[in-house]
């Protein structure tokens, strides 16, 4: 279990990250620590990468039913650089603005990545949420129909980004639910 070279983050880098993300100083430093513990030995943290599996098994994401989607959305070329992890933490931080969260939520929920959340995506979302083997077809269809009837404004059986944005702006729980505490300190 090697560790990255223990370089302290430069002050300018810290300032820059603070300006570019919604994270606080402490959060950035904690993520930096966690990243150093996980990345391969002998590499500078800015060049090191983590695999999707490593990020999936972080305590914050380990039990999340959407962790594979989260990893896919935030990684580049199937690996996570330090800045990718920071970007992910920033979107999920408490201080992030609603529009950013809605944007990434849409990307996460768009399983087939066609730019819309259609019935297939909804089906997968519901199955992930219920996490059970015996979900009847009727229940699924019922739920999907209800969701679409509430938020599909133009009746095309899919949610475009605008419709999703509209639905989430009215949802009282979205901002509270779409938060992850990444740091372990």
């Amino acid at each position, binding site marked *: 279990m090697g560790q990255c070279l223990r370089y302290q983050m430069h002050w300018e880098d810290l300032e820059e990250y603070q*300006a*570019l*993300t*919604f994270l606080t100083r402490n959060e950035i430093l904690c993520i930096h620590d966690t990243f150093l513990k996980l990345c391969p030995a002998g590499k500078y943290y800015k060049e090191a990468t983590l695999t999707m599996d490593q990020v999936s098994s972080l*305590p914050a994401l*380990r*039990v*999340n039913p*959407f962790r594979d989607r989260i990893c896919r959305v935030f990684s580049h*070329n199937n690996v996570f650089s330090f*800045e*990718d992890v920071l*970007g992910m933490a920033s979107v*999920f931080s408490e201080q*992030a*603005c609603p*529009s*950013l969260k809605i*944007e990434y*939520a849409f*990307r996460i*929920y768009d399983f*087939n990545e*066609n*730019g819309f959340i*259609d019935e*297939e995506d909804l089906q997968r*979302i*519901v199955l992930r*949420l*219920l*996490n*059970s083997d015996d979900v009847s077809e009727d*229940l699924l269809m*019922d*739920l999907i129909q209800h*969701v679409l009837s*509430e*938020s599909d*404004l*133009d*009746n*095309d*059986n899919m949610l*475009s*980004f605008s419709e*999703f944005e509209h639905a*989430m*702006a*009215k*949802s*009282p*729980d*979205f*901002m*509270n*639910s*779409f*938060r*992850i505490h990444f740091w372990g300190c």
Partner: protein
Amino acid sequence: MSESSGSAPPLGGPSGHPGALQENLSVDSSCFSPAVNFLQELPSYRSIARRRTTLLSRDKQSGILLKPADSCGSHLEGEITENLNSQSIRKYALNISEKRRLRAIQETQMKYLSEWDQWKRYSSKSWKRFVEKAHEMTRHLELWREDIRSIEGKFGTGIQSYFSFLRFLVLLNLVIFMIIFMLVLLPVLLTRYKITNSTFVYIPLKDADKQCTVYPVSSSGLIYFYSYIIDLLSGTGFLEETSLFYGHYTINGIKFQNFTYDLPLAYLISTIAYLALSLLWIVKRSVEGFKVNLIRSEEHFQSYCNKIFAGWDFCISNRSMADLKHSSLRYELRADLEEERIRQKIAQRTSEETIRIYSLRLFLNCIVLAVLAVCFYAIYLATTFSQEHMKKEIDKMVFGENLLVLYLPSIVITLANFITPIVFAKIIHYEDYSPGFEIRLTILRCVFMRLATICVLVFTLGSKITSCDDTACELCGYNQKLYPCWETQVGQEMYKLMIFDFIIILAVTLFVDFPRKLLVTYCSSWKLIQCWGQQEFAIPDNVLGIVYGQTICWIGAFFSPLLPAIATVKFIIIFYVKENSLAASGNGSANDEVSCGPSLPWTLVPASLAAAPRPGTSLIMFYFIALAGAHKRVVMQLREQLSLESRDKRYLIQKLTEAQQDLRDQ
């Protein structure tokens, strides 16, 4: 729309966009149906995508949208930099390296601005940074931040909201106490202990008034040990002489060097101040993060969109809590669909059935009223009995009996508050409402019950104080003989109520919940124990409990200025007790039938309690409701129009696809 794997060839850009954008589209769009491909090309879709600056396609496989790093990059960046002034860099949905580039562009842009604009930009940025640092500082100072964070991670946002509400009440009571301390206590203390050069001013009273203000504090010669305990628990004896009660403040003014500080006025102002502050703070807290949307037609707490897209608590990091959340979601979604079915069934009731149901409901509501009346009468009797027998001397009674008499009203109130929810839950079963409505109505009745009991107590005391059968009343306006200092008596009752409520909460948590948990852990082989012992953290009950405690505090604070301080300490202790009991029992709330989300319904309860309706506000509310109705109609029309347009769009896309097919086939 069916997701057929279209065999349509890559489509050329129909709307004459710059070439570089086209090339991204043509990559592997065959996995999407032709309809979706068309939709992705539409100008409306692209402009929305550009507005989000979703420079999505990192890997070319899912090449859908726009990429900044191409030759077309400058064109795109031009679009983005138009908006740069309006948004901070953080809000862009880009990764950090792209944001860095944007920031560099922004800074080079700055050079072309005039000096004034540059300075404006710079100062606004520094101001924002300062505000952020200040926020960070204050967030650091937040009470119990780590505890609540870990609770959120382990048990979810529902339970976390209870604890953050508790924290809010601690702070509120502390602030209330500060107000009272500053305005009332501090001058008195300063003068009493000769810290400042001021003196008390006693305004000379007329004879009649003198009689009204004479207040003999009872003190027996021999002081038994347990009389101290009794005094502590009931607010009599030595406590009466302290600052705890209103009767202590007999001073009419404090003369400082330059002015006279009017103490009674200060007392009144402090009362108004803390009531206003409480109201404002609670309303602010309720409205935060809660978009009041009067236009909506459905209940948004129960809405499916909310449950599906915001149903999973992303901050759960614990395996068992995750399983609990999954099962809770399973239950909730099924229950919602069930409720839907019941509502449809209700809508299809015949008129005969409706009449039967309504008469049954009328009958059951009468029973509810009867139950309430019985409770209120019991409280009245208990209070009267307690007041009459309180005057007996201490040494004539046994310790337990004395305490029982003193605490009789509190005991009866607590018993009533305990039994009535059970009774209401049983009754509502027969009233045949939909499950969601059942829960709401039960809770409403319980809340009403709790408030009404306090009112009955106050009313009984009031009637006792002002009832007399000789001329004593005319002199001072109340029964001077029995109640020489009625404000203190009322304060005492509130004090007793608060202490008793606190004892009950502690007792229930320590002596009921904890053994239950032990039973479950060690005797888990017995099925009976398993069923009964698996208790959950019932959020509504707990929230109602602390709201009740806070209401007592508000009402009692006028008569007993130190009550907010006691309430602060009480809530702090409750926080730690509940937190440890939760950690020990390790059970979140599983089948929380009311929405598992944040405490929004519950924070509205104190807001509605505190906000008494007045004619002015009613008029304003009526206006807004009328406005909302009008808006709703417009929204319906626009929705109709939108779906018609979409149908046209799909029709055209279908025609186009068919035409393409024909062309290819030829």
